[in-house]
């Protein structure tokens, strides 16, 4: 059993008051308490950006790596010990700009990872530049004349690349987000939650009010097994047109399930064995 007290780190959060990261942090800890995630079974991996600080604020084993690279680190952890719950905290700049290639290929691999994409559509930690999620026309320190590039849609991208579980949540809806985090982790395969996360300091477009006015829940009739239905819903974005919930969920063999070496045990549980290579050497004679 995990308690909130056990998850309490000695470091107080350093996010701006009102930051969406607080909601994600709280939802994750609530999920951990409900599911019993602790240092015997769980690892948090983060990239660099405001999101990445989360590792300091939860007392769980964690790896804060380089900007854009949490997915490869998580991939290595998962292959070495596939019994661990591995959560990847990443941002829109982290996952879609610096780490875009990793994002595509991680989805393709269908590793059993849960990706929590803190999507604030801005670079917050570097004090406000346009990100791959910023809308067209967006004015920031890097685009004072307005952004002339189209924003990326991360869930459509992940769907195309081969992810098997896709959802969108909102940092202001802690119980809803907690539920998505639990479901994503329970899904065997590559699961992405795009979390709409207002940056109260640098993004005056995607605010709490903006999201609350324009979000709606996917209906119960939405067919989560249909790629076509998922694409159709993911095309929506704008006034009264931001669906949240689970877009896509199919069961495909995970990467780890297809590796024979992992059929009986984890790599790490085997230890680092000294091996007799004399049989292989015969082939070189």
């Amino acid at each position: 059993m995990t308690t909130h007290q056990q998850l309490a780190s000695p470091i107080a959060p350093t996010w701006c008051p009102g930051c969406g990261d607080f909601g994600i942090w709280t939802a994750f800890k609530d999920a951990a308490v409900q599911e019993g995630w602790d240092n015997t079974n769980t690892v948090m991996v983060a990239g660099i950006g405001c999101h990445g600080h989360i590792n300091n604020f939860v007392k769980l084993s964690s790896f804060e790596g380089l900007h854009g690279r949490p997915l490869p680190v998580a991939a290595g952890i998962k292959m070495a010990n596939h019994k661990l719950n591995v959560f990847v905290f990443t941002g829109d700049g982290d996952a879609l700009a610096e780490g875009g290639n990793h994002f595509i290929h991680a989805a393709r691999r269908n590793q059993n990872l849960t990706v929590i994409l803190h999507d604030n559509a801005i670079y917050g930690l570097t004090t406000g530049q346009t990100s791959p999620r910023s809308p067209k026309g967006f004015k920031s320190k890097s685009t004072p004349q307005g952004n002339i590039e189209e924003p990326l849609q991360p869930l459509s991208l992940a769907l195309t690349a081969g992810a098997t579980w896709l959802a969108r949540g909102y940092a202001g809806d802690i119980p809803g987000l907690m539920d998505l985090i639990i479901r994503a982790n329970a899904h065997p395969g590559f699961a992405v939650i795009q979390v709409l996360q207002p940056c109260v300091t640098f993004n005056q477009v995607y605010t709490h009010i903006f999201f609350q006015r324009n979000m709606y829940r996917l209906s119960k009739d939405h067919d989560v097994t249909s790629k076509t239905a998922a694409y159709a819903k993911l095309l929506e974005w704008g006034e009264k047109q931001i669906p949240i919930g689970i877009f896509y969920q199919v069961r495909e063999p995970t990467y780890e399930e297809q590796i024979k070496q992992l059929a009986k045990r984890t790599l790490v549980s085997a230890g680092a064995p000294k091996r007799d290579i004399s049989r292989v050497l015969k082939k070189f004679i």
Partner: protein
Amino acid sequence: MRPFVFKIGGEAGFGIMSAGLTFSKIATRSGYSVFNYSEYPSLIRGGHNLMQVTISKAVARAPYQHTDFLVALNQETIDRHQSELAPASGIVFDSDKNLDLKGLRSGINKFSLPLNQIAREVGGSLLMRNTVALGASVALLGGDLAILKQLISEEFAKKSEQIVAENHKTAEAGYKAALTKYKKFVRPVLKPLSKVKPQIVLTGNDAVALGAIAAGMQFASIYPMTPTSNILAILAAYQEEFGYIYKQPEDEISAINMAIGAAYAGARAMTATAGGGFCLMTEGYGLSGITETPLVIIEGMRPGPATGLPTWTEQGDLQFVLRAHQSDFPRIVLAPGDIQECFEMTRQAFNLAEKYQTPVVVMIDKHLCEGFTSLAPFIGKDFQIERGKLVLKKQANYERYALARDGISLRSIPGLGNNVIANSDEHDTRGYSNEEIENRNSQMEKRMQKLVTCAREDMPAPKFYGHKDAAITIVSWGSNKGAILEALPNLKDVNFLQLDWLNPFPAQAVAKILGRARQILNIECNYSGQMRGWIAEQTGIKINHSFLKYDGRPMYPEEVVREVKKVLKR
């Protein structure tokens, strides 16, 4: 004794490399030592391929510039290599092809044989030309046809008996044709010796891969790049048998980060690349350093910058590997000088990485990666796996980066109940981000202390060959070792200092040896004398004579002899 040099050349795609390897195994199975060197362009078909085999009753360690026996399967081979033919040497060529031999010097034996015709009529395909040539070469060099036929049987064991039989017939036909026409020219180069011990014939890439397997490597993520791609081919092939994972990642950035992730989770992990791939890995290199995650990196050098000469050799990455990444972190850098050392140092690298919880780079070059040598089969009993301060039980009040006099904290892994934090931000003893002055200083000093501990506990004295006192001391590193050791018996009054630990660096020992040297000749394959600079930085000794080579070709014994004589004349 001057070794015998066999070369076979032809168009890429016609089995030149496999013929050269087969030829070298005929030699080893007859009791000789070999060193194979290949040249090829960055193409799959077309272009010129060459494999040369140095054959010696003693130990063969390097390719030579001269040629004693040349198999020329096309005109280009003749044009490129006829000037290398030594007096009384021989050249095998196709009698049907109207080849231009006008440039050939007198005194060279011409073996004109219908290679194409035999390949087509007996073997049923022009692709069998290399088999005909092998049969003829075995005949003219006094070899045992049965050994060639045995090698053919092994090579095609997985294919049909018919294919084996066709190849046998083709080799026999080449053998007979040569013997019938040129019996009095036969030289006993491959004559089986009375005592034949089993020898393995393998590349540096093979040796690195086998060293990793032997050392208990559990996870390798490697993106393909010449000259180290064959490491991944070996690792991929044996992963299910030995229970480790080889993963092909999307790029080198992912390769190093995956390996770091696996190592953090507790697996012995590695990656391998060439200089260009290492450019992409530099940020991960420092990540391994600050998170104190053990990692073995194989760095295979080729001439750069950028794409450079993709399939040729150089030693131009030394200063890059010593400096890559911003700021300071402890890096252990090793440079094997031959293929035996590739095996041993790779094994050792895994122990060092875990003991010091830091990246260990094994620097090799194309010449080591893809050159073959014959060796006694590797043994395992001289090696033990040492995992350093690895804690696999729950510890009370565990702190990942606790201060320690030797610089090495207890390392635990996730999933055991300990709170194991790896953090690329500067961090406190627990792993939480921390920017305070005292903490920064103590963590930086703790990390860097590891190099001091390593130098004290693990770094051996550099290797030294020859008499203590000599007119010239050669200093060199990496694959040049082979050519220098081949040259030494031909030189009076010369000794050789081989540097194989580059960081930490045995500065005192090197200063002592070079300090007493009468003349120093630095030999390396790069433009700027990168080792010369490193020696100066580490010891204060300035070296006046250098032979620097950056044409993509390996060091030849003939060049070493020439350069030593130049210094002596000055």
